[in-house]
């Protein structure tokens, strides 16, 4: 009896061992195994390609702009637009102030309107064809080329439609002005803000909402106390990324009449009167100086330096977005 038991034992053990090794063996040598490894290397290679492109761009520009940034960073940041690259005091102060205000406009107009629209669409709107149609159109708007938004801004704010309420916009913003630029770019990023906020609002598990409703919370209490805190990291990332998109746009600003040559105005960061005045912005300066480098070689270096500064601010915003997201996600768990 004991022998038989041991025999059975060993046979069972052998059988198990065999099936285990077989299973492990097939995974390593099989066709799917090779494919798996191959695919992994292809993906890594693709990742490196994009990283290398990025690195080359950044290094190339940093080298071009190094002289300007290292020898006269202070005067470059505080200087103004000049007609020749050798002129004393050439710099990007006006562009920095312009881009700063564009970012402020996006934060003040696009963020609240976009987030409110997203909350309405996700939580309040009836799920019918009209809502679906509106959502589809918002998605389409996010894909419309930025120059088209420039045209929209041109007609509403600069030329001025002689129609009902629209005609007031022109006198309000003062035509081809910084306010017109800020509002146009706010409209430009509004669909992106709505879509990313909507996606973030969708992430809350329905059982958490039900739990809140279950203890007698009103709809707004559920949104305020559960949905928004849960969606905050996603909303923040999306909105801040859309802000960096706004300050990088050049095409709509050209249509709005951004100043490319000499801008007489040199206002401080918080001089509000400049909102109704002619303006320029970082992407405009970069575009313009890059175009000019054929005639005047020094503009190329200045353009590179300006790109480095713009990149610095864009990366700063993106880094803030990531840090805030991590902070809120930690708080959530």
């Amino acid at each position, binding site marked *: 009896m004991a022998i038989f038991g041991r025999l059975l034992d060993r046979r069972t053990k052998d059988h198990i061992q065999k099936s285990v090794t077989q299973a492990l063996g097939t995974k390593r040598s099989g066709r799917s195994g090779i494919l798996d490894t191959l695919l992994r290397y292809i993906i890594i290679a693709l990742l490196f390609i994009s990283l290398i492109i990025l690195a080359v761009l950044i290094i190339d520009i940093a080298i071009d702009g190094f002289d300007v940034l290292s020898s006269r960073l202070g005067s470059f940041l505080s200087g103004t637009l000049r007609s020749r690259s050798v002129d004393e005091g050439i710099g990007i102060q006006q562009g920095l102030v312009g881009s700063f205000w564009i970012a402020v406009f996006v934060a003040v107009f696009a963020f609240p309107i976009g987030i409110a629209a997203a909350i309405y669409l996700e939580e309040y709107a*009836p*799920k019918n064809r009209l809502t679906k149609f509106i959502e589809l159109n918002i998605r389409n708007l996010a894909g419309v080329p930025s120059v088209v938004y420039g045209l929209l801004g041109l007609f509403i704010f600069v030329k001025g439609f002689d129609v009902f309420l629209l005609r007031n916009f022109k006198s309000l913003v003062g035509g081809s002005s910084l306010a017109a630029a800020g509002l146009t770019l706010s409209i430009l990023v509004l669909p992106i803000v709505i879509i990313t906020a909507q996606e973030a609002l969708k992430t809350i*598990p329905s*059982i*958490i*909402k*039900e*739990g*809140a*409703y*279950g*203890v*007698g*919370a*009103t709809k707004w*209490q559920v949104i305020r*106390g*559960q949905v928004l*805190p*849960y969606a905050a990291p996603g909303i923040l990332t999306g909105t801040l990324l859309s802000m960096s998109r706004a300050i990088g746009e050049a095409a709509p600003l050209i249509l709005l009449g951004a100043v490319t040559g000499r801008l007489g105005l040199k206002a401080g960061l918080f001089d509000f009167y400049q909102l109704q005045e002619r303006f320029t912005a970082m992407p405009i300066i970069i575009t313009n100086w890059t175009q000019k480098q054929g005639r005047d070689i020094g503009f190329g270096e200045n353009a590179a330096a300006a790109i480095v500064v713009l990149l610095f601010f864009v990366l700063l915003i993106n880094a803030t977005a990531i840090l805030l997201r991590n902070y809120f996600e930690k708080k*959530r*768990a």
Partner: protein
Amino acid sequence: MNGANNMSDVNNMTDVSDLNGTANSMNGEQEHIFYARDLNIYYGDHHAVADVNLDIYSKEITAFIGPSGCGKTSVLRCYNRMNDLIPIAKVEGTLEYKGLNLYGSQIDPVEVRRRIGMVFQKPNPFPKSIYENVAYGPKVCGMSRNRSELDDIVERSLKRAALWDEVKGRLKSSAFGLSGGQQQRLCIARAIAVDPDVLLMDEPCSSLDPIATTRIEELMDGLKNDYTIIIVTHNMQQAARISDKTAFFTTEENAETGMRTGMLIEFDIAEKIFSNPNDERTENYVTGRFG
């Protein structure tokens, strides 16, 4: 079991309540807190539950049992108007709470949910601290005037849910750090923090291990002195162990449309349902021959 002679099958129940027609029904010993007549639930075109006639009695545990898709959870979610959250859900018929039509036009569903609390199938603590989880209800209901009152409510609720001793040292830490069973007891504490009349429990132990399940069952036994409890369960032993009354639901296919509609087959004291049910379908189900 008291009230053994109160109950009979569903058809008789209708007759009895028609005779009485008041909240104090039967032989006056017990009062029913919920009164449902011809309750029908639709999800869009789908007729999910048909013609439920059911009285729930105060300070008792009523269990809903039946196979999947028989509509027991749908019926449960009518009692605190949770079905309102599903846009396509439609409820027809009479559903009264203490003589008040729950689906009447003047009824505020938010107010209903403050009186009739709910514990869900999966533990669903908020992504906040243990303290904030329990305090959330009293806060949104405006129940406490100051911090120390809120502290009292939180402590009392956690004690009531038999969780206080395990968490009193870490009230500020995340609720997600608790085990599944602890999370579910936290959800019970959260539900009773707003001092409801009724607790609805939708398969509260389905994701818990046997030890955690036992703890919840013991807890429910203590809670029924103060609360009316309705529990949906897939576990027949659980229903037999803890419920005073048991309702058996099942689902039948409509011969014309081919759609499955849930219905209440039998409602009686638990002992009767599990030992000697009137309906053959109930017997088949509780003896494990079907479902």
